[in-house]
């Protein structure tokens, strides 16, 4: 079985690992708080968060930043549970 895109420990590469830090944007802080609130409310757990991230198409996974992956997962898990209707976020955002 081929390893999924997130399971990348030990992949041989000569490329340097990008260890640069960046200041967190407001939406990133809010994303963190949102997941914390969802977990405390019992609506999702960290293992579901991970599973949602791992379900991303490999191309999107590679392009997405850390908290973009969180948001993808939150939408996936909450839609799966019927807490969000399919396409509800896009509708609310007028997209």
């Amino acid at each position, binding site marked *: *079985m081929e*390893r999924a895109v997130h*399971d990348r*420990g*030990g*992949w*041989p590469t000569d490329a340097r690992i990008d260890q640069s830090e960046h200041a967190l944007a407001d939406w990133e802080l809010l994303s963190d708080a949102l997941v914390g609130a969802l977990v405390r409310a019992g609506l999702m*757990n960290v*293992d*579901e968060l*991970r*599973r949602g991230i*791992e379900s991303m198409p490999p191309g999107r996974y590679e392009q997405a930043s850390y908290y973009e992956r969180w948001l993808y997962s939150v939408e996936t898990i909450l839609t799966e*549970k019927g807490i969000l209707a399919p396409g509800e976020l896009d509708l609310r955002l007028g997209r």
Partner: protein
Amino acid sequence: MTHHVGERVRVATRDHEGHHRTPGYLKGRIGTVELVHGSFANPESRAYGADGLPEQPLYLICFDRYDIRPDERAHARDRIYADVYEHWLEKVNEQPRP
């Protein structure tokens, strides 16, 4: 707890459909139990909305870097540590290392 500190164990090589926490690069590798963390809810079922029970023992396993990938960058003293759940560990029949 099935395993004890100092015991040599092998990480199972089996595939797993769905979420699991066992890194692919450690599957089939042999390491040593460094620490018994205790028992924790199983993420493999918890990731799908279940309660993760029964709890599974979790161990800190120490691997020789050279055993994972025997290349020129592996220093003799380099180690890799990873947390692995008991149901991913197999007993190893080999003499303890001196």
